[in-house]
């Protein structure tokens, strides 16, 4: 079977053919002396018009394929509509042309001229909207600089309205129908349109995908507009109709349930948990502080947890100056939960000053010069759950100090000099802590050659 979607990209090549043919048609219309060359005109047009129409239709079909595979259906709406009207107009013009040839009359001639002119306009609009899609909205401005100022003005206007609406959404009250509506969706829809089945490529359990819609390319939920939401349209279709939901023998939604869904979408269609979530604001101060650390050569970033906490990795710096690092780290003390200080020979005050970062949850000290005595200084870190002491000079007494940390759940001891027996005893005593790694004594002996 021929799969159109595979060849969508042909649209980009093929579209030049009808344009070329159309230019030919216009040239003949304008340039050919009809009285002298009536026969030539008829023959040429008889070939050019149907050929142009045929390639146009092909181009449109490939365009549909391209839009389905590579583009957002809504984004190409203008282009699609212009393209379709162009094809319809050209088709009608072609019909009028043959009508005139079959039985010469002025009505046909006039209509032909009108439709051809309109299809020319539609072609220009299609071409322009297509070019905007492919080459970006600046496609004309670059060629015609005087348009630029115009566009800037429009952009400013847009951004102004956007910030207005943003302000509004911040103060929007929670949607009173959310819980009830979600319960209905959960009971009647999500079994098939959820993680397990995704019938029709549609999922309702994820807000983003519930709004986007499924394989029909129609938006599932349009906040504020129940009549445009495919979810409502399908649910309201009479039983047995093509596409009616829920399908088959399942009972359709009751009018009350539909009313709830409608009011829910009218009020914004927020999902549970969405309305309450405050937009986490990017704290520009924190970003600046992280920047300062990056300038020192450290890696600094927000944690993947999305709660505004930060992580700093000093392990790849070349002989870092702790004093300098400390002054830059200090302002982050309330947010720093993850510090990688591995592979370094730290000045003694480093370990003492770690108490300034009481939020620390994860601390890497592998391959560092940490000693048993230094570990005693970590006692202030009440939230520390991860501690990495691999390949250090820590001994059994140091491990005991570390294990006294109240929140500790993971302790890494790979390659430290402790007897396996002592390690196993510690593991037995602290079953809430995952003590991972082999002691040096457990390493297989190297064969001497």
């Amino acid at each position: 079977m021929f799969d159109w979607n595979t060849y969508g990209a042909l649209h980009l090549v093929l579209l030049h053919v009808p344009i070329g043919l159309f230019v030919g048609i216009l040239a003949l219309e304008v340039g050919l002396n009809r009285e002298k060359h009536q026969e030539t005109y008829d023959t040429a047009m008889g070939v050019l018009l149907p050929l142009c129409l045929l390639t146009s239709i092909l181009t449109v079909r490939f365009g549909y394929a391209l839009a389905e595979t590579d583009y957002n259906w809504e984004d190409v709406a203008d282009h699609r509509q212009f393209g379709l009207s162009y094809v319809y107009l050209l088709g009608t013009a072609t019909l009028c042309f043959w009508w005139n040839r079959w039985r010469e009359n002025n009505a046909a001639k006039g209509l032909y001229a009108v439709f051809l002119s309109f299809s020319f306009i539609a072609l220009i609009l299609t071409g322009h909207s297509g070019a905007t899609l492919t080459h970006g909205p600046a496609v004309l401005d670059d060629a015609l600089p005087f348009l630029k100022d115009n566009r800037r003005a429009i952009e400013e206007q847009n951004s102004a309205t956007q910030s207005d609406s943003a302000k509004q959404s911040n103060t929007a009250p929670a949607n009173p129908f959310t819980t009830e509506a979600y319960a209905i969706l959960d009971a009647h829809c999500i079994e098939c349109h959820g993680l397990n089945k995704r019938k029709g490529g549609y999922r309702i359990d994820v807000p983003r995908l519930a709004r986007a819609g499924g394989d029909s390319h129609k938006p599932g939920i349009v906040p504020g507009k129940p009549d445009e939401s495919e979810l409502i349209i399908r649910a309201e279709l009479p039983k047995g109709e093509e596409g009616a939901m829920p399908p088959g023998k399942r009972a359709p939604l009751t009018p009350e349930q539909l009313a709830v869904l409608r009011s829910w979408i009218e009020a914004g269609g927020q999902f549970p948990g969405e309305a309450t979530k405050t937009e986490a604001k990017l704290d520009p101060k924190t970003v600046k502080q992280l920047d300062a650390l990056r300038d020192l050569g450290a890696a600094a970033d927000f944690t993947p947890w999305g709660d505004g906490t930060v992580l700093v990795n000093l392990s790849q710096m070349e002989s870092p100056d702790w004093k300098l690092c400390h002054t830059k780290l200090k302002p982050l003390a309330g947010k720093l939960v993850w510090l990688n200080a591995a592979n370094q020979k730290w000045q003694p005050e480093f370990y003492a000053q770690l108490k300034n970062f009481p939020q620390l949850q994860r601390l890497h000290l592998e391959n560092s010069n940490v000693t048993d005595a230094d570990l005693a200084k970590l006692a202030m870190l009440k939230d520390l759950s991860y501690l990495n002491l691999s390949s250090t000079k820590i001994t059994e007494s140091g491990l005991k100090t570390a294990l006294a940390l109240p929140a500790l759940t993971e302790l890494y001891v790979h390659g430290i000099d402790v007897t396996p027996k002592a390690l196993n005893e510690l593991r037995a005593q602290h079953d809430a802590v995952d003590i991972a790694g082999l002691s040096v004594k457990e390493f297989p002996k190297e064969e001497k050659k």
Partner: protein
Amino acid sequence: MDDDLKKLDDLSRRKFLNYTARALLGVGLASTTGAPLWANVMSPTKGRPNARNVIYIYLAGGMSHLDTFDPKPQADSQYGPVNVIPTNVAGIQLSEWLPGLAQRANHLAIIRSMTSTQGAHESGTYFMRTSYAPRGTIQHPGLGAWLMSMSGKTNTTLPGNVRIGGSAQLPGREGFLEKRYAPLFVGNPDKGLNHIKQHGRVSDEEMQERLELAQLMDLSFHQKYNSKQITSYGDMYDEAIKLMTSQDLDAFNLRKEPGHVRERYGNSQFGKGCLLARRLVESGVRYVEVNRGGWDTHNDNHRQVEVLAYEIDQVLSALVDDLYWRGLLDETLVVVATEFGRSPGINRNQGRDHHPAAFSTLLIGGGVQGGQVFGATDERGGEVAEKAVTIPDFNATIAYSLGLPIEQVVMSPSGRPFTLADKGEPLRMLF
């Protein structure tokens, strides 16, 4: 040169700002608000995304899920199903050819309900690496490039994105993103990087002169075409020079590793590749891809898979242990992926054919809870029976564990919108 480096920093800083803003507004939010009904259930007491690094192991050719991670001992096959062995997690069984991983099942999250739409190697690989079906008009980036562009590398002279084995031309490179996010290709893990030593007859001074001459020649061109893509090529030169003189190059030298560690990984190219991957991750490389081919078992499936499975069993066991003991498994996500599974039916060459409808992948570490099986196939292993996971979902999960902004729309140079995992939704319940 110094000035150039500063410029580079500027750029990454802007990226960083951009990224962090999106990260805060996008992905992370679900975790802060407890467990909303729709957020396919994530309890705060369980794990959370922790990954900083990814070791992406790709078994090219299509791993037979039926003979490895999704065995069907009850199925009647004329050549006999593979025997199963219990693992150290009650209720999970693996193929008898994976004894090592069976003992480490408490670290594994096995996804048995993967499903793809691409049944050929090229398009399947492309889909797996990029979350998009191949198109003639555009090249989509791989996750390594997305990670580099959205979050940046750890501060080291090493590249942030490395590919070991396979081919430099495989899909999942920088795609339409900037050239400098492309993976550095290491063909042979034993040899490390090629062309990294300065030529013996060229002194440092001469080298410097040559570089300056090259810069001088480029100058007018750079001034005339001052675009991101062009400067990106310049950045690559700078980074290469930095790398040549760097101490970090030792990370590529497997001989620095003690004998008993090398022994655990074994002598195969794949084993060495994984050992190199661990060394690189330790040195701050954030995305390492290791390729192992040969899984296209159209002939004599059982005998071939036995050999292949024992190999990955040894190497993955060594890698998991090694990362776990060093405390790296928590923040390193090990991904084991392939383009599709293999058919339940045996063909006349005693082989199994391509089967995209159902297959298995693995996630280990990075905050993913070990000791779980996600989804299931039917009794023959031919179709997904529950919790289908599409390839975009799978890639979105990797991105989620790294804290990348899954919903952020990025425009290709031709002005088309893309997200890093298409319409994929991360499997938050794995964490």
